């Protein structure tokens, strides 16, 4: 459990949090609309459409994870060696992976499913209607 004091000792940069979640949200709302388009073209109905959406948004998160998080945390040479924090309680530990860029894994992996849902339904309906005119 992180107390207020732990946050005072190793603070969180609010600007970076904003920057990251904005980048993530932009990507997610765009891609959600895109998935709506393809679901509409494929003519998916009810559950298969929602499953399609969930699968593809998880895939987007995974792609982002591989391109932006895995690669970024290992590029600078001689950087990892001073990160092997041993037993340091609090926020200092675990600076690699999703935790380096987001408050929690949940926000990164599943935040997008909720974020883009309305956009998905909109474009899904639109293209479903357009294609099956």
């Amino acid at each position, binding site marked *: 459990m992180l107390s207020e*004091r732990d946050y*005072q*000792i190793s603070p969180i940069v609010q600007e970076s949090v904003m920057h990251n979640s*904005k980048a993530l*949200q*932009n990507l997610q*709302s*765009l891609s*959600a*609309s895109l998935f709506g388009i393809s*679901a*509409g073209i494929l*003519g*998916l*109905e*009810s*559950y298969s*459409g*929602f499953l399609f959406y969930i699968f593809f948004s998880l895939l987007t998160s995974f792609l982002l994870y591989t391109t932006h998080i895995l690669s970024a945390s290992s590029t600078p040479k001689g950087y990892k060696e*001073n990160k*092997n*924090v*041993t*037993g*340091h309680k609090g926020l*200092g530990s675990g600076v690699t992976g999703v935790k380096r860029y987001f408050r929690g894994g949940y926000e990164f992996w599943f935040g997008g499913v909720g*974020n*883009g849902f*309305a*956009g*998905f*339904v*909109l*474009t*899904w*309906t*639109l293209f*479903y*209607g*357009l294609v*099956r*005119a």
Partner: protein
Amino acid sequence: MAQVPVQTIHRDPQLFYWILFPITIVMILTGVLRHYASVLMQSAPKKLDQKSIREQRSLLHGINVRSNFHTLSKKSFATRRDALVTAFESGAYLKDPERAGGGQPNPLSDPSSMEGMMGMMKNQMAMIIPNTLIMSWINAFFSGYVIMKLPFPLTIKFKSMLQAGVMTKDMDPRWMSSISWYFLCIFGLQSVFNFLLGSDNAASQMAQQMGGMGGAPAQMFGPGVDPDKQFKAEAENLAVIEHYSVLDNVEDRLLEGISV
């Protein structure tokens, strides 16, 4: 109701061109316009006289000392606390010290608080007016058509909402009229606006810059709050702080946390 086979309705494609697209385009344009209108309507911060700046910033200073006490050593914190508590309790920073302990000012007589409320009103209006206008426009022109079919099934309860104005009893609730397309747009276009306005909103940045050039900070005091009471409360908050410092044991944390 008996199980109905899949209903097909042959719709004129012209419905799309003359209903669906106009509604969507109007919705997008309204969103963009609303964004710029709210940027334009932001009122410039009001000029304050020196005394009220002093009042506000002293309180802010107190809050800062309270929330960031952990950067100081115990001794430096104690001196600051003593000075601030006495000053706050005696009302040394008040705009007019005589009024200390006086009654609460009427929020409606204070012009500055009125202005804050006006700002909120303006924002609300910018939301409500276009929405009512568009809704009545759609109701007047496009009611009574079925234009699309939702790709997912819904319960019968949605029928009255989605098919308002279409008096067909046996129709599948998945068929929707133009007004429900409007509702779908309200919720779904948020992402489009994010993309249109969020990625490159020069307008809002410009506003920030101008605010910075104006120089006055945002209103600290809400309407109808007695500054004297705020100071007293702040003094109490300061007095009860149990001091610790982030510098305690910092060298141990460092040795533990960083290895070469």
